[in-house]
């Protein structure tokens, strides 16, 4: 597995650092400049994320495209842009299957969320591999990254999906308990941690994929701490409040 390494460790580290930094910047800007949070200004924050993070991901991953001889930089960017809506559709479908609300009220948020998820998952492989069926299959079906480039693309994607799933799971909890509110605080510190972890991964690609994946899941999870909130907020803003409002409404109608 160590044999073919198309991308050097510093390069991979820089790539991840850049991506993570952009997320951090978004977070900082949203928090401090606009004092937005995902709960109060869901679509605005998501839009900001999209605007800052999207171009960086497309740009950076296009740089590490695989078939450099046949494919120019702009070609890779175009591939990434093409992959964006397709991926968003798939993500939106998945979100709706898992319980995201549908309706005009939620349309904007769901769209933003799916686009962002698409940037996390679909756009990198689209930039790097294009429409090569074999590569996509290797990355997404087998869960076995063979080269460091594969890991670079697939592990964050898996991390995002699993993180999003885990984020969706505790939605029915009643959010009155204080420990649940601490989700957001953990998010910031972990984004920093995650940048360090990524360097390890790319350097020590020889580790068995299970170990990496577990660590990567954790990373992805942390990476997605903000995203966990996205899922909660975007897909089920009214669900979160459900346990609190639900009983009362029943009471009112009886009375």
């Amino acid at each position, binding site marked *: 597995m160590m044999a073919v390494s198309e991308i050097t460790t510093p390069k991979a580290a820089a790539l991840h650092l850049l991506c993570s930094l952009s997320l951090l910047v978004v977070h900082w800007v949203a928090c401090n400049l606009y004092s937005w949070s995902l709960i109060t200004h869901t679509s605005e924050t998501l839009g900001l994320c999209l605007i800052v993070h999207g171009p960086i991901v497309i740009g950076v991953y296009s740089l590490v495209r695989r078939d450099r001889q046949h494919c120019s930089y702009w070609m890779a960017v175009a591939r990434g842009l093409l992959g964006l809506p397709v991926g968003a559709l798939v993500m939106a*479908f*998945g979100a*709706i*299957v*898992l*319980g995201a609300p*549908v309706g005009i009220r939620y349309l904007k948020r769901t769209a933003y969320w799916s686009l962002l998820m698409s940037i996390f998952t679909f756009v990198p492989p689209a930039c790097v591999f294009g429409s090569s069926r074999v590569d996509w*299959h290797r990355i*997404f*079906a*087998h869960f076995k990254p063979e080269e460091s480039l594969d890991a670079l693309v697939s592990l964050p994607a898996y991390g995002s999906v699993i993180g999003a*799933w885990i984020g*969706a*799971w505790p939605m*029915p*909890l*009643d959010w009155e308990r204080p420990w649940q509110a601490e989700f957001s605080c953990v998010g910031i510190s972990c984004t920093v941690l995650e940048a360090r972890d990524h360097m390890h991964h790319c350097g020590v690609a020889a580790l068995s994929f299970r170990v990496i994946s577990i660590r990567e899941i954790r990373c992805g999870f942390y990476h997605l701490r903000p995203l966990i909130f996205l899922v909660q907020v975007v897909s089920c803003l009214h*669900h979160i409040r*459900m*346990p609190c409002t*639900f*009983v*009362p*409404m*029943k*009471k*009112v*109608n*009886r*009375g």
Partner: protein
Amino acid sequence: MSGPRLRPDHRDSLSSFQYKGMVASKWAMIRPFFLILTLHSLAIYLFTRGFLLTRTELSSFSHCSDKSQSPCSIPSPTNNANASFLGDHPPKSESNGQCWTRPAVDRLVIIILDALRFDFVAPSFFFEEKKPWMDKLEVLQKLASNDRTSSRIFKAIADPPTTSLQRLKGLTTGGLPTFIDVGNSFGAPAIVEDNLIFQLANNGKRVLMMGDDTWVKLFPHHFNESYPYPSFNVKDLDTVDNGVIEHLLPSLLRDDWDVLIAHFLGVDHAGHIYGVDSTPMIAKLEQYNNILEEVVQVLKNQSGSGALHENTLLVVMGDHGQTLNGDHGGGTAEEVETSLFAMSLKNPPAPVATVLDKNYCHLDLDGKKICIGTFQQLDFAVTMASLLGIPFPFGSIGRINPELYALTGRTWETHNQCAEKFGSHSTLESWMLNYVSSLCVNTWQVKRYIDLYSMTSVIGLPAEDLRYINVLYSQAQGSWLDIMKFALSSENGTNIRITDNTASVLQRQIDSYSRFLEGVAELARFAWTEFNLMLMGFGLCVMLTSLCVHLYSIRTVHGLCKSYYPFSGSSASLRILTVIFLVAIRAVSFLSNSYILAEGRVASFLLGTSGILNLWFSSDTGEVAVEDLLFLVLNIIIRFSIESGISKETIGSSSSIVHSFGSTDIEKGWSLMIGLLELLPILALSILVVLIYIIISRNSFWKRLKHFYTMGNILCCMLMSVHWIVESNIIAASEELKNFGKTFAPRIIYSIGLLHFVLLALSLTINKKYIVPVSNPTDALAIVATSMLSAWSSTILILLGRQGPNVALVCILGAWCITRLKWAAQVDAESGTATGPIFNPMPVLQWSLLAVCLFFYTGHWCTFDGLRYAAAFIGFEHFNIVQQGILLAIDTFGVSHIIPVLSIPFLVISKHQISKKKHPDGLLFINLTQAFLIYGLITAFTTTLTIICVTIQRRHLMVWGLFAPKYVFDVLGLLVTDVLICVGSLFYY
């Protein structure tokens, strides 16, 4: 697909083994199911006996005229002296305004401070340490120490469950409400039992209520005037209180009420949000102190002779206590101990001290004396009723509290001619006489209730205790008769004076009545309020044991499976882990009440997750199956229906969408639309019929009875559409047709279903070859399973109502998708064998999740008002507990338990058909056993977690509102599943 690579010699040895084992192993395979069923029943029986306390509500009411039946009527001088006091002279209520007892107070002001801890009211020197929240209600303490004869603080003991609703019920009925009060109000909160408020309204007392809107829910029609405020928002400390304050003081100056109830909620809410030791709590208490001060001021100002509150009793009380965290619901001392403050505005004479201070004075303050009595909340209803002079609530088992009775001035007046016969005029003696005669009525009323209860209730009281109670009763009433006879004889001229021992005679009488009443209360508490932790623990242990047995039998069957096909089994470990993970998180989620509320959505979330995982697994092979995508789309449909079901639940009506369309007034232009909506289910039904026909006719092996079953089903569907058309009133039908459609069509459907079932059972027991002429066991199994399903489906369909066909379509499509799973077959191809569900439990899990989803999809949810009562009356007009019970059970468990469990064979069949290989015959049944076992295990595991959760949360606020109904539903579901698995195994093997 490569065929099975079996070595020839192995195959030979197998077939001989198999023929030997076939007949014997049928019972060997069925036996574990029965063992598990027995274990589960035992566990559930034990746990339920310990956890769910039941009490039957009686629908009898007390009336003024009932008193003539009691042995307590003292003949008044207006009556013939010779008339027996046991006799049937007319009630005296009209003559002198006296009903059961002589009214002692004219007006009553009850101020309820929700979750009032005992130490909020009692002075801090009663406790070891002074805490910040103590001594805040100073006005009450001051009154209790300054006006010791007319006001008093009590430690009031509530009975668990200490939730507001149950407590209000307990306070007003004078009983001990349990979780399951079997009665007419099953599900609805309004109290139908006899209660204090009913008696007040019935006897011309005007009741004014303000505060917590729970009162209005409990007593929708009883108040003259009410100012309810919503109590749901726990974070809102002030709305209710401000509303009460706004109305309380002005109302005190009005004379158009007799009983005023003001219910403050602030302390309860402050406790829930901030805890007891917090600034908002102290602020609330200080606020109450000011209000109470004003109230007392107003009352005292108006207490002069002839004024508004000349003879008013003020009661300030809590309905229950709370822990330091603000929780309540359970039975710990903090939750149970609340306080009651009573102040009478008509001072009793000085000897009151002998009654009050004799037994109950606790502590001395430096200088001043302050006394605290004890008061059982159980006694509240009867004490208030006796003071107001109204009949005691029928189901009350309390005793008139002597101290509270003594506080009011009028109970000291000699009012009874009979008292003169005793020749005693001391105020104490006349008080005692009054009290004894009230106690006599009280005792008689309690005895009447206990007698009727033990005759009519579902679960009676222990016979031995009843006998003991009877002995006490006859002793008490016997000595009362003696006294009365004595008194009468003295009137008849013998002129015996018994002054020397009147007090002691009466005291003895009071004691003997008290013994009886205390005995009854003890018996009732034992039967109705205490969890039996021992039984619960045993039940839980048996349940855990049954899980072990379950796992063991799965292992055994797995070993049996291995004997057919030796293979190394590590390839599917990821799938098994996934399944275990999904089951585990679903089960663990029941520890949280919000997950129980959202169970339907969580199940569909997990179902969707499993669908996505399927997609991922199948993309491994490079091709995405249509079924996987269809399954996801189906999941979306299920999800939306569940959500709309939840919104229906919130609205509180269980009518279907079509119904709500029809019921609202829509313009005429919509009538076509409505007609179309009415036709929609029939359209879906016809699709269903075609589908069923195709499925059945595809089975070419099935010769005999095939047409009988097909025709039966089609007939049922036609009858169903007739029924719906007639019900919807879109066609003007004749009276006979209407009658036929409404009553006979459903009944014919039920009987066809029953006929099918009986026929199947008979033909299987008498001659299996008759109905299943084929030798191939896979096809034979398919035939039996199909006929089994067709026997049940039409009944379940019609009970589901108009949504039925849609549900059936979703169910069939979902089942089809699950059975067609590509990667299920993939495992077979990889290992070259039909591995059975043990290596691939995913379809079984999906099957079970789909069943859970269908339960919610069909508009059920896990509370008693989630039962679809309307379904029980399809085809029947009148209520019959057996008929309607069966129909309701079939409706509740039909689509979520009966159909899924009985159609499990299709999982195995399809797998055997997909793999297109020749398997040894026994393997089919081993796989079927595995599928049944795993399905049962999934259900049993989640139920076990529910039981554990209920055990842990038995003191939780929502235990009676949420956890207990969930427990009941889960446990019944588990039993139904077990029974169905047993029945299925008997039919299918």
